[in-house]
């Protein structure tokens, strides 16, 4: 039997990870409030976003410009949200 036939597809591992990270975000959010929790949830969101871009959209296999553009988008939006929450 080929190894590839028993190894889960990258998108299956990604899906499992996304479910776990979603539940982790929910748990973190339910545990309280404050800058540390906000940063932690936003960091998990950034990871989830990049996982979707890389393994669902398939950007990991295209020219790095597009993957970088998506990462930049997530960092800029996440950074703006983080800034707004830190100055509040």
């Amino acid at each position, binding site marked *: 039997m080929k190894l590839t036939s028993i190894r889960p597809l990258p998108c299956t591992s*990604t899906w499992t990870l996304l479910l776990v990270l979603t539940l982790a975000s929910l748990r973190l959010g339910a545990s309280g409030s404050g800058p540390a929790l906000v940063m932690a*949830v936003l960091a*998990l969101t950034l990871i989830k*976003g990049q996982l979707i871009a890389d393994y*669902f959209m398939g950007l990991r296999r295209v020219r790095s410009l597009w993957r970088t553009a998506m990462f930049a988008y997530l960092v800029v*939006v996440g950074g703006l949200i983080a800034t*707004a929450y830190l100055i*509040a």
Partner: protein
Amino acid sequence: MENISDPPHALPGDFAIWVFIFAELTVFGVLFSAFAFARAAHVDLFNQSQLALNRGLGAANTLVLVTSSYFVARATRAIKDGRGLLCGHWLTGALGLGVVFLALKLFEFHQDYAHGITLSTNLFDMFYLSLTFFHFMHVLMGMAILAVVAYKAYAGRYGVEDHAGVETGGSYWHMVDLVWIILFALVYVIR
């Protein structure tokens, strides 16, 4: 089997959809930032109003949308293997989960209305309803695209060499998922 050292591939699907996807992401990014900075001036109001939301339903919808995105990824894999029927089945599954998402969201909107949450209640509710309804419309649009792609997959119009339509529709659906991931964290979770 693809090798990591293979040369970079072209963007999945039509190039035009990627211009559209980044335009959509920019619009949502501006709205998310507007929400966050509006909150900075009304922290108590936003924190208080957020408590009225049904976070469980929001989380359930996140799991539903992430799973539907996974189904679309499997559909793309299937058509690359030349399995049009299987591709159609995965897309139909994704569409079914899209229906579940819409049903849960409509139930949530109904609950919100019953609890007095309207566009004019306060700034948080205005943002919450506008953002989620705007996203709701994108889910509808994504489902319309997926339905066409599923129909064409069942009709045998895609193959190993010609499956840009599946990738184009799929990329749009993943964008809808990506936007909800951020929306869920911003509106329902962080405080």
